[in-house]
Every structure is written in C-alpha cells, then in structure tokens.
C-alpha cells in the first residue's frame, strides 16, 4: 500500500495542470466568478477546447477517442479541474448517453453520435423523469407506438411528458425512456430512444427553481416521430440501458475536489466577514464547523480512493457508490449552508433580474450574491440522481441484504 503518486502520475498531473492554466478561457472564469448565467456557447467552450486535446471524456476508452486514462489519472484530472475551478463538461453526452451507446449501440449509432459528443458539437439532454414518477423510474407513461411509415420504414410515434429535463432548452438531442409495451410489468416493456430535439411535436417549457435558475424543464412530446434505428438495444429492454446508465451516473458524484474548493470559498468569506470587530473565521464555532467539514471531506476522499482502487482491480462501480452519492451531497449541502450563514444580512438581497449595467452601487460583498440561491438550489442534490432515501434503499438491499 502506498498513498503517494508515482513519478508518472506526477508528470501527468503537471501536464494537465499546465494545460488547464494555458487553455482555460479567461472570459469564462470571469463570468463564473461573477455568478453570471452562462450561455450555451459559454458552456460548450471548454468542452470544445478539451475535445481538440482529446480530454473531453476522461473515462472513454481509446477506441472511441477517449484518453484511456486509468482511475488514478481520472482522479488527478478531476482534482486539477477543481483546483483550477473550471466549469464542468456537461455530463449528459459524455458520461451518460455515451457509455450506453458504447455498450449497447449499433455501429451506426456509435459512428453517428460518439464523435459529436466528444467534440462538443451537439448538446444532449436526458428524458427520464415524468410527473408522477420521480425516483420511481419504472413507472413511466410516455408511450412509443410502432408503425410503418409511408416510406415503408419503421417508426415510433411518441406521446407523453418528461420533466426535470436539465438544460433541455439548449439540447440538440435527447435520450428518452419510453414505454413500448403498455401491458408489460413496470420495468419491462421500456425502450431507450435517441430523439432529435428539433423533431416536430417537442415543446420545452422552463421550470424555474428556488434560486431563480432556469436549469430544468418540462418536455412535452406530441406525436413525435422517431425512426426505429434510433432505439438503443432491443425493444422493451431499455431498462437494461437505464440501469447501466444509473450505475455510471453515480460515479464521480462524490465531488470531493469541487467540495474542497467550496470549503476554501467558505473560508475566504469567513476571513472577510466581521463579527464584533474580528473576522468570522476566528469564531471558534464557525471554525469548528469548517474543521468538521474538512474531516468529513477527507473521509469521503479516501473512501472514493478505496472505491477507485476496487474499480482499478476489476470491480465495476457497484452499489457502494451510493455511499459516495449520499455523503458527497450531504457535504455539498453543508458547504452551501455555511456560506449562507457566513454572509449574514447580505444573504437576503436577490440580484437576479438586475440589468447588467446597473452596478453603480455594489450591494454587499460579491461573494454574498449567490449564497442564498446556491443554498436553495443545492437542496436538489439529495433529490436528483436517485434521492438519498433511494440510495439508502439500494445499500440496504444490495449491500446489506435487507
């Protein structure tokens, strides 16, 4: 056993560190620092830079254009990205649909979609959740009826409603779970479809969340026509793809490196905020909360490393990753709580909707502007991606045999 990086690992770390330093766009950093909402182009910019370098998809094997990094290298990569506070490459293409296409897709599907995902040419969204089916994905109502078109080809006609569709307002393509056999039991009779979001019959309606963000949407599908060759894997076997994807989705959700940055940000705030004439960070109780966060973060980090080591020695991401999801999101939420606590009175002003030029009087410190919205928005992390209650159910069943 050895905690230290090898010489190769250190060389790799230095390489990615300097690449990020040299290539991460300044304007992106400035916008993110100011809490500005990022445009679609902003969000894809870094992805495309990485795509050119061949680093946009750390977990992809080389055969599909990935860098072929091992788990330690991927860990180093995510550490370095967090260290440099880069925006994240959006996961819907690279880490969600792509592994499914690699595992279950046809050669045509691979050829059509994987390169575009890698380069950041196309934006993907995920059509899983439905109103009335939150964590219970098997309870789907969106239905796809198969028919033969006038051209003699096979198609699905899709009708239904999806919700919580993140960033669907920007999406070029979506991957959808739909019911192709209405009489089958809950998890059977589901198929996994790739749908062009420009198809007639698709309507995207924003859902505004507590912090004022437009991140999620309702997606209405009305007689949307999808060619059968856009189905991944067998008809009525979409649940296999969904399960595969869910297992992948949970990895990396620990967010250790990002949370480390978050703790640093809280410390920075607490060094500026004054209480009775001294910086808040001198308050022993505030300081203690930070220390407890740091300790829990170390525990999460080494638990993730143990999990990575397990994966490296051949075990796939198992239900243990539910642990990382639970503890990772709890820590993320505590960070947002502490930040809001730290900013005091200036947690109350709500700045979204101010005109861009209208900043003659700066109101409160810059770091305070997003504290409350970030806290509010952060409540989603224990709900999305399989709520933390569901994660506990998974561990109870799959690990503890209950």
């Amino acid at each position, binding site marked *: 056993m050895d905690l230290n990086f090898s010489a190769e690992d250190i060389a790799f770390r230095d390489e990615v560190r300097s690449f990020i330093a040299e290539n991460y766009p300044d304007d992106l950093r400035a916008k993110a620092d100011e809490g500005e909402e990022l445009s679609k182009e902003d969000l894809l910019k870094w992805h495309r830079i990485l795509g050119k370098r061949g680093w946009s998809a750390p977990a992809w094997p080389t055969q599909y254009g990935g860098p072929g990094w091992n788990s330690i290298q991927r860990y180093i990569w995510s550490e370095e990205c967090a260290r440099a506070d880069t925006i994240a490459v959006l996961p819907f293409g690279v880490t969600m649909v792509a592994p499914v296409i690699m595992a279950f897709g046809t050669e045509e599907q691979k050829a059509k979609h994987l390169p575009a995902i890698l380069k950041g040419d196309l934006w993907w969204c995920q059509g899983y959740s439905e109103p009335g089916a939150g964590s219970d994905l098997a309870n789907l109502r969106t239905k796809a009826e198969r028919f033969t078109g006038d051209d003699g080809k096979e198609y699905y006609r899709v009708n239904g409603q999806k919700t919580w569709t993140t960033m669907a307002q920007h999406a070029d393509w979506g991957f959808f779970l739909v019911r192709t056999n209405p009489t089958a039991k809950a998890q059977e009779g589901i198929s996994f479809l790739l749908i062009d979001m420009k198809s007639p019959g698709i309507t995207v309606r924003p859902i505004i969340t*507590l912090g004022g963000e437009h991140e999620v949407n309702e997606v209405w599908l009305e007689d949307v026509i999808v060619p059968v060759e856009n189905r991944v894997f067998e008809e009525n076997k979409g649940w296999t793809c969904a399960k595969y994807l869910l297992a992948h989705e949970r990895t990396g959700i620990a967010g250790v490196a990002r949370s480390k940055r978050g703790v640093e940000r809280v410390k920075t705030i607490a060094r500026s905020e004054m209480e009775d004439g001294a910086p808040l960070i001198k308050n022993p109780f505030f300081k203690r909360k930070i220390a407890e966060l740091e300790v829990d973060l170390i525990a999460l980090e080494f638990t993730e490393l143990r999990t990575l080591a397990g994966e490296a020695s051949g075990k796939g991401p198992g239900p243990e990753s539910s642990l990382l999801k639970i503890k990772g999101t709890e820590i993320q939420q505590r960070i947002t709580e502490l930040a809001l*606590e730290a900013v005091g009175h200036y947690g109350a002003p709500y700045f979204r909707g101010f005109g861009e030029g209208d900043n003659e009087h700066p109101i409160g410190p810059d770091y305070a502007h997003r504290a409350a919205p970030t806290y509010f928005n952060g409540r989603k992390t224990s709900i999305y991606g399989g709520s933390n209650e569901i994660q506990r159910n998974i561990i109870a069943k799959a690990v503890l045999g209950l």
Partner: protein
Amino acid sequence: MDFNYTDEQTMLRDTVARYLADTYTFDARMAVVNGTAGKAGWNPATWQAFAQELGILGAPFSEAHGGLGGGALENMIVMEEFGRALVIEPYLSTVVIGGGFLKAVGGAIADTVIPQIIEGKVVIAFAYAEPQGRYNLSDLRTTAKKEGAGYVLNGHKAVVYGAPWATHLIVTTRSGGGQRDKEGVSVFLVPADAKGITRRDYPTVDGSQASEVYFENVQVGADALLGEEGKGLPLVEQVVDEATAALCAEACGVTRTLHALTLDYAKQRKQFGKAIAEFQVLQHRMVDMFLEVEQAVSMTLMATLKLDEKPLDRAKAVSAAKIKIAKACKAVGQGAVQIHGGMGITTELATGHFFKRATMIEGQFGSMDHHLARFEALTD
C-alpha cells in the same frame, strides 16, 4: 399558571386566519411579490384592509391610542397567522418594532405616531443593520452628531426590509463612544423622504423588498430622538427582543404550514405503487418535523410571556426561543423540500416559498450561534 387564550384573543386569531384564508391566497400573494399587482412587494390596499377592515394594526396598542388594548400576545397571534399565510406586509417593522419603540418611550411622539400606525398611514422600516456589524446591535458606524437643536446623521444601513415603501425609518446611530461601545447609541424616527437619504432598492429572496439606505448629512430635530441620547442600547435590545419573539411566532406559522403542506403532498404523491406517506422513513421524518414545530410553539409562548421580565431573563428566554426556532426552520424547511422531491425546489408550489422564508428567519435578528453565545453569556 395559565395557557389559555382570552375570548378576545381567540377572536383575533380566528378573524385574521379567516381573512387571510379568504383573500391572501398563494396566487394573490405571488401577484404582489412579482409586482403584477402593482409595485413589487407592496399592495397599499392590503395594508389599508389590515388597518380598516380588520383593525389589527392596533392589536398591541392601548385603547387610549385607538388600539385593541393588547400586547405581546396579540403580536404573537397576528404574526403566527401571518406566518401561516406567508404575509409579506410589514407588521413586524411597523407595529411590533415601530410600535415597540413608541410604546417604550411614550410621550408626545407616541401620542402622535401610534394612531397613525393604527390607521395605516405610517409605515415604518427598521434601519439597524450595518455591513460590518453582523448581529451586534451596538456595532455602529452610522453617526448622529449634535448640531444646533437637532442632529445630523451620516452612514449606511444594510438590508432594510420594507424601506422602499416606508413612510418613516427608525435608525440606530452612534452619537458617542467607540464603534462597538454599549454607551453612545441613539435612536431616531426619521421621515423616509428626509433630505439626504438615498436608497438602493432590491427584492429579497423571501419575496419582500429591501434597501441599502444611505444617510448624507440628514438633519433631524431633537424631537426625532427616541429615548435619551447615547442611552439607546437597552431600548434597542428590548424592542429587538420583542421583534425576535414576534419573528418566532411567524416561524411557528411558517413551519406549521410547511409541515401541513408536506403531509398533504406525501399522502397524494405515489411512488413504487403507494403513497410516499406510507414509507416509514418519511413518516418518521414528518414526525420529527412535527416535534420541531411543537417545540417551536412552546418556546415562542415561553419567550412571549417573558418579554416583561427583567432584561436578563427576557434576553435569555428570547435567545433560547430563537435557537430552537432556527433549528425548526432548518429541519422543517429542508425536510419539506426533501419530501416534496423535485417539486419542492420549484417556484411553482407554495412549499419552496415557505422554505425560503423559513431560511431567512434562521438568521434574522441573529443566527443560532449568535443566540447560543448570548444565552451562554447570560447563564452563570
């Protein structure tokens, strides 16, 4: 020892509750918050209805001033109902705080202004916080300098809730001593349109409107001084304790509604073929939320009933209450959102709005740590 409401108090509660249930619906509230019903955050008609139709702006004032002859308990009753309906109108700053100062100092200024509060003509915002001061009421850089018969005010007050539509501001200032001294604090009642006052208005995350308020050589007369020059801190502490108790009452209403909304949602919402209310883990979480609400109600009652005790006992009671209320706001707010799932973090359901208000109450007039430190300092 007696925990029963008088008939008048029961009637007050029922009247307010009924009025709000009928008129202060979620949609009506959001129309005001979003400004689709006039100026964002302020509907003068509602305030006039509180004054005229309901007469509740006189709840804690003596009959001699035209009030209902009540006191802190009446404020508690109104604020709890306001919390239940997520009312944004400034009863707290106008009636509880403004009225609190005026009742405490009495005299001509009280005789003049209290009736105007009751009539709904005077609306007060409380300009006490400063960017560097956090929750320390005597950490003041805003100055009041004696000049002639009056004073000149200079400084910057932070996050003054309700300032955009206030007719008057109550301003805490330093008229002597060092930045955080207990001596040298003076309090003024100033017309909001006095020369030299500028504002920067903005919405708050919990649906209200607030302002940064800047004082530049604002001249006020000696009659604007509330209480004695330089001796204002005990007065401020007393009124802020009264306001904190009233805020606790609001929190009781907010968390009660959050709990009720969550129960309703959990009973209707189905997952895995059954109502999520059937999952034992969620049941116990809702029980724990219930325990928090019940204890918050107990503490609010305790603190309200102790507002007239000696300052140390009053302060200890209020801090103890605020500690439990902050915990309740966090536990019930977060629990409500979690059990609502995705719907809990949208702006479409009332739940998220109650959660945001609950979150702001956690820190208002002092965070849990602030009040724990205060409680400790007063114990032994």
